[in-house]
């Protein structure tokens, strides 16, 4: 079965682009446009990777990340954080909350896919989760 990625992103066009890229590469993708219930979904789906937007209309991406880390079932999941804000402070906040990788929008498609592959590879090698990146 193809590896599963959970994508949480509210901008429909950006989500559409990422889904296209992942599926073309052979991944299975579940997409959520809102932050509500994201932690529960992550527990049920048990994906190999979570791609998380930092700014969602209802809940902050950082809060979701904290929620994921607090739940033993999802604490080890690799998380790739996306943000449209370029400030270094946003990166620090994301790392502090436990993001494995941080990527600013706009990104190069290739760079994004490379990050996804790297995170998954590491997750498969060293399960449970490695130290913070």
């Amino acid at each position, binding site marked *: 079965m193809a590896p599963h990625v959970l994508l949480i992103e509210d901008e429909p066009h950006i989500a*559409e*682009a990422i889904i296209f890229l992942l599926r073309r590469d052979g991944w299975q993708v579940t997409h959520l446009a809102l932050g509500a219930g994201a932690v529960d979904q992550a527990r049920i789906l048990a994906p190999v990777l979570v791609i998380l937007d930092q700014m969602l209309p209802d809940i*902050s991406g950082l809060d979701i990340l904290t929620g994921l880390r607090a739940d033993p079932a999802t604490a080890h999941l690799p998380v790739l954080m996306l943000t*449209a804000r370029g400030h270094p402070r946003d990166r620090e906040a994301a790392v502090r909350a436990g993001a494995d990788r941080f990527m600013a*929008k706009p990104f190069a498609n290739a760079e994004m896919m490379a990050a996804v592959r790297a995170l998954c590879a590491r997750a498969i090698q060293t399960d449970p989760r490695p130290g913070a990146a």
Partner: protein
Amino acid sequence: MPFNLLVLVCLAYVIFLFTVAFWVERRARAGRLGWLRSPLVYTLSLSIYCTAWTFYGAVGYAARSGLEFVTIYLGPTLVFVGWWWVLRKLVRIGRLHRVTSIADLISSRYGKSNALGVIVTVMAVIAATPYIALQLQSVVLSFEAFAAATPPDSPTPGAGSTAIWLTAGLALFTILFGTRNLDAQEQHHGIVTAIAVEAVVKLIALLAVGIFVVWGLSGGLSGIVARIDASPIARWSLDPGRWAGLIFLAGAAVICLPRMFQVLVVENGDDIQLARASWAFPAYLMLMSLFIVPIAVTGLELMPASANPDMFVLTLPLAQDRGGLAMLAFLGGFSSATSMVIVEAIALATMVSNHIVMPLWLRLRPAAGLSGDLRGLVLNARRVSIGAVLAMGYGYYHVSGGSAALAAIGLIAFVGVAQFLPAMLGGIFWRGATRAGAALGLVLGFGIWVYALFLPSFGPDAVLSAQLMAEGPWGLSWLRPEALFGTSDMDPLIHALFWSLLANASAFFITSVLTFPGPVERLQGAAFVNVFDGQVGPQRWEGGAAEPEELLTMAQRILGDEDAQALFEAAARDQGKSRSILPDPTPAFLAALEERMAGAVGAATAHAMISKLVGRQTVTVEDLMTVAHETAQVLEYSAQLEAQRAELARSATALREANEKLTQISVQKDAFLSQISHELRTPMTSIRAFSEILSEGDLPPEMVARNGQIILDEAKRLTRLLDDLLDLSVLESGKVQLSVSLSNLREMIDRAILATEQVKPEKRFVFQRDLASENLFIRTDADRLTQVFINLIANARKYCDAEYPEIRITVRLKAARVRIDIADNGSGIPKAGQGLIFEKFSRLPGELRAKGAGLGLAICREIVANLGGSIAYLPGQGGAAFRIIVPLRIEGGTA
């Protein structure tokens, strides 16, 4: 003179009065009162003191008791000549504390006690009802006098139907002009002017009859002097006790009668009116009394012995076949009766509704103070009260059957209302007067009046049995109604006056000395007694406990939206707040608000309603010290300090506001940078991702088309954002090019509604508009103004969360400025956000990611500023509401 003609003239006269009242009301509403507020009109309106009882009755009085009738005019003359001492103070207190009636004055002075208000109201109604009946009777009698002179074959109505038509007509007139609006100061310019006209009519009528009697019937001055010498009136001798008693009584009545209090204090505009009236009103009274004796002696000589001397003014010209003169005399009497009844009904209705109906209603439904349409309730209570007062007057007339007992009722009513005198004068001159003293004095004095004068006036065996009258209750002869404590040789009227006022004043004084006033009472007492000195605030509220928004909601229900908002805005400006229409609930503001509301619903009710929101009124030791020491204060120095302190407080508020704003803006600046970064990066992300996908090639054609469309959409979004930013910077720099033309506001709003239909098209919005008021031509930049409307309506469509969403648009033109309110019925904008929504990229707390870039309202604010107007959030409207004010025509082609 045919009877039908009389009815016709009568009707024409009434229609004329309606027209006058209507015309003045319209001028008053347009703010163009001008000479209608002159001392002349004020003085003439005071002439309701001369009722039909004085117009017709003075002649009868002179025929029966000689010169004694002069006392009725001498009392008021003394009071007015000495206006500096009592009247000036009364009127000043009335204006400063927005007193609505004599009951309100007494209740307000004694700690806003509604119990006292109720006592005074009940007393006034009981004393006034027979007096109103007397007026009805005089009109009926004058109709009958005409009917008697009519050939028997022509139809004349019975006395009963005359009275009932008259009562109904008076009720209609009073309700129409007495309860048009809930005035902050309870003034009725239309009625006052109509009364002034009636005053002129009755003066001319009486003078005309007098001149006719002297020069037409008696051959000039020497003839009338001879006639007076020959008549029994010349043999009348003066009884000093009764003479002094009656002068005192009339003087007391002129300030205590509810209708006199109404025109004298409540309808007063300034001290100049009063100063002028101090000599003009006695002059009027003198003219009114000039020909009384000549008419009386001529009547006694020429008329048959059976003729009623009360009707000489009318029957003398009729007997001499002077139809025109008789008609004039009739109109004079008619004027006297109607003006008295109208003002009395208004004064009593104000008391009944403010002191009985409203408090009762607020007690039965405690929650109602905060909701419901109180203005309508108050007005309806007044209308019903007017009807009830007049119905009681009619009922009394009907039951008493127009008996002769009514003739004496004028003086009897005077004694009844004179009972207010100790509580009133004591209240404004003596700080030590207390509520308990006032209540006990009033009740005791009134009780004696009822027992010793009012009930006996119906005659033996009518109410009190003949046996009781002759021997006293249970055979106790010292309790005989007309000879209390064995004073049987006194005149009954003076007897009752003496005992009732003695008991009243003694109880008032002794109880006041023995009891201790409550805190509110002390403050009010100081404010009333020292009304001319430095201002001891009429009341002290502990500020801060009330929500300004709740206060506004309540004030709107009493004063109306317009006035309440204006009051709040002015107060906010005075406090140095420029960005909110809500002032802080400072003690000073609460006091001002209470005073304004007191003008509409009375002091006690206004006090109770504000207490409901603020909590109990607190009086600190400091307050009491102020009251105790205020005479020792160096007033000028403290006034200067006070002014400086107020100035400092204003600048401090302004500085604090500026500081808060700066802090908020600095916090926002970071948010702004990160926001603009987000707004630019988001569309670029999609554009970049899909461009890369496209450039790799090898895609099915429909995918290529779709991806291209997405890139196009996102590019447009970027452009729009940049356009908005550019627009805003141009608007902010003030270099914007306006294309000014004359355009129709309704078309602009239509266009805006049409343009926003694509926003949330799935939601069904109901628009509430008043197309007639929108039909205005404004000289402005129509496209820019429409852009503001589009923005506000689109926001309402986006954010209104009501189940059945509505958008209400109200337009008002005021002083060359157009006010447009756009409100929805959703949950509105939380208070914390209201100050920030007009800032660029502002986000409401808790809102992470709005649909727009957060520039819309900032642009709106800049546009409206460029159009010479202002836009503000309007709190307390039940949903999100915005108020735009733009000038009706802006100057020049560019701004």
